[in-house]
């Protein structure tokens, strides 16, 4: 067992996630959202004009678009008032863009990430770490060996300044344009922080790169932007963790992720999200994949009041492939609406989607997915498997796997199961000595095993812990 794992075992997960710090901020935008808000953010960040323009355009689009209200079974967003959200908080740190030594961080922020176990994880298993506190990245570090090979891992604000041309070309243009949906537009207007990852041709980054996003203030929004560019024949694994403590007012997280997978490149994007139960988590994530490239999305959606998240992949080049693995857990008062979208726009493309969801104590999970196979994308194949496990009769689970198949020479497979946790299964385990709770926990950990076995060990441990905590109903 690695010492990394030891560390994760020894730190109490609940304590690590559900704590809050007094908020000390250098700058906080007023509540609400107007052009003035945009100018204030842009001024504070000292951004180039093109970015300010893009923000203003996105704001107009946001204001013009209606809230999504008519999707069957979707989370209720009516209580969410964007005007109550503080869109931008810059923590009090002198060096903009973050420090590269944990000890240089203010104590309150350092404590937070210590509790989350981030510095320890960096020491042991990662190529680079970025940590975002409220709206800004406060820590960023990359191992020299990767820097020497031309790998870039920096915060998004820095990227706008230091790598302007490449960001200008890729930032919310043809991957996730603000017009994609209302919350993508909101994100385009007030995004802040996030990560920029660039991997040059023929470079394999064989240790994961990790970012950690933390919301600490009440009633704030976090809108980090992640842009990953993997050039031809390159490979990278990006891991993202998210959390927020519990407050009475709601928080909003609306991140944007754009991934460019070059020819024969391979990108894996893994995330374990654990938001407090008053967070609306509404994200837009998309990857564009060139010929023979491969994209993998692995998502664990825990916590939040409502989540709407459908990572999507556009298979642009011949032979490109996609693999989605998602797991969602909804307890009392939660509606976790997740899924996957894949567009097969070229021949010989391949996708697999595996989704597992668990609902308990009246919680609701939905799988909402779309597989589109374009006319001419011959010899393409897709396999979709969605399994839902319900703990009781009060909980709900729905499966909505849409298929749009416009090509006849394709292979399409779909399987869905929805079931209640079996009384006979529980009894069987009880007769072997496990009590009722442990029996259920064992069944659930087995149910999500196909997912946890795909994760790096420390994340698998983490995910299992979070599921255990959810099942005890003890997470705030």
């Amino acid at each position, binding site marked *: *067992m690695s010492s990394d794992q*030891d560390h994760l*075992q020894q730190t*109490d*997960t609940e304590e690590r996630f559900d704590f809050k710090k007094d908020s000390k901020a250098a700058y906080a935008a007023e509540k609400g959202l107007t052009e003035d808000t945009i100018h204030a953010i842009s001024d504070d960040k000292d951004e180039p004009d093109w970015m300010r323009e893009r923000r203003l355009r996105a704001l107009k689009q946001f204001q013009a678009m209606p809230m999504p209200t008519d999707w069957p079974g979707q989370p209720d967003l009516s209580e969410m008032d964007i005007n109550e959200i503080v869109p931008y908080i810059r923590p009090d740190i002198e060096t903009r863009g973050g420090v590269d030594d944990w000890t240089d961080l203010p104590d309150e922020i350092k404590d937070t990430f210590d509790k989350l176990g981030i510095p320890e994880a960096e020491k042991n298993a990662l190529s680079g770490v970025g940590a975002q506190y409220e709206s800004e990245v406060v820590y960023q570090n990359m191992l020299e060996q990767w820097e020497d090979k031309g790998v870039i891992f920096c915060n998004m604000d820095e990227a706008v300044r230091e790598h302007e041309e490449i960001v200008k070309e890729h930032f919310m243009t043809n991957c996730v344009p603000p017009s994609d949906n209302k919350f993508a537009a909101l994100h385009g207007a007030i995004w802040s922080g996030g990560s920029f990852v660039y991997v040059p041709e023929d470079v394999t980054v064989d240790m994961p790169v990790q970012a950690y996003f933390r919301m600490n203030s009440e009633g704030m929004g976090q809108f980090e932007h992640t842009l990953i560019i993997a050039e031809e024949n390159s490979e990278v694994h990006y891991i993202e963790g998210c959390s927020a403590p519990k407050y009475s007012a709601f928080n909003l997280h609306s991140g944007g992720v754009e991934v460019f997978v070059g020819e024969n490149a391979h990108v894996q994007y893994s995330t374990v999200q654990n938001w407090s139960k008053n967070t609306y988590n509404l994200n837009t994530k998309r990857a564009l994949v060139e010929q023979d490239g491969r994209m993998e999305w692995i998502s664990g959606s825990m916590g939040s009041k409502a989540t709407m998240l459908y990572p999507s992949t556009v298979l642009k080049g011949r032979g490109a492939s996609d693999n989605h693995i998602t797991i969602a857990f909804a307890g009392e008062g939660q509606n976790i609406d997740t899924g996957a979208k894949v567009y097969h726009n070229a021949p010989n493309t391949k996708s697999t989607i595996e989704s597992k969801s668990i609902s308990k104590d009246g919680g609701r999970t939905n799988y909402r997915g779309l597989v589109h196979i374009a006319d001419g994308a011959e010899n393409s194949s897709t396999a979709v498997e969605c399994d839902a496990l319900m703990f009781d009769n009060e909980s709900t689970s729905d499966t909505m796997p849409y298929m749009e198949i416009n090509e006849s020479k394709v292979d399409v497979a779909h399987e869905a199961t929805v079931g209640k946790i*079996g*009384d*006979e*299964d529980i*009894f*069987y*385990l*009880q*007769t*072997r*000595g*496990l*009590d*009722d709770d*442990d*029996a259920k926990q*064992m*069944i659930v*950990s*087995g*149910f*999500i*095993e*196909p997912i*946890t076995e795909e994760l790096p060990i420390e994340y*698998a*441990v983490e995910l*299992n*812990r979070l599921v*255990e905590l959810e099942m005890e109903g003890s997470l705030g």
Partner: protein
Amino acid sequence: MYELRMATLEINNLHAQVAENGERILRGVDLVVESGEIHALMGPNGSGKSTTAKVIAGHPAYEVTDGEILLHLDDEDVADVDADEDQLSWNLLDLEPNERAALGIFLAFQYPAEIEGVTMTNFLRQALNAKLEERAELFEDEDEEADAEEDEGFETSPMEGPADDGEVGVAEFQQILSEKMELLDMDESFAQRYLNAGFSGGEKKQNEVLQAAILEPSIAVLDEIDSGLDIDRLDDVAQGIERLRDEQGTGVLQITHYQRILDYVEPDRVHVMLDGEVVMEGDAELAEKLEENGYDWVREQVYA
């Protein structure tokens, strides 16, 4: 493992019905099984054999309307848990299924559950540790209980992790498992397969005996362990049952339709059930008589 435990299972006038619809199944079952003995419980379909097994283990689908199920422990053999005198006799009907398991009751299922995603190794190690822990709790006096609650920490997940005090660690457990599997002629690969998932009928039955060998019960109720077994496997399973008795001192209550397995495992006592009661008892010869004459013969004898 932990020390050998001698016990006596005593069932008195047991009446039980299906909880959902009130259908009466057991109408006064009396039965005594001691550690170290092999008993056969026989009877036609619907006579209440399987229900008896499930009620002993605490299945929630049945409601006990009368009678008792007692488990008496031999005080010399509970020395390792420091039992008080009043902790030597338990009414199982007051206990949860896992508490019954902790006291040494084991039920081998006719149709074992398939649990996807949980390896045999993880499952059995966790079960064994849960049993040890529950047992310590059952025998704990009240002061200790209060202490224990205070420092109740985070439990180890099935994903390994540092073993708590008194737990069987991963390496130690692997060794126990390999040994027991070899004795049952089971392939090593079983250890990493998911619990019963995709197992053949015979493999599932072998697995039930393996679990009994690992959990070392004082009383094992085997519900039609012989159904769906080919001859070779029947032999492995029968030897496994004899080892439970010979090496662990387990008392076996073997529920079966047919006499076939009794040729391999000779019972000390044979009990015959009819219409929810034990109506006839005898030694191994009784089973042979049944084989020759069928259950109609029993009916004639009883209702004549």
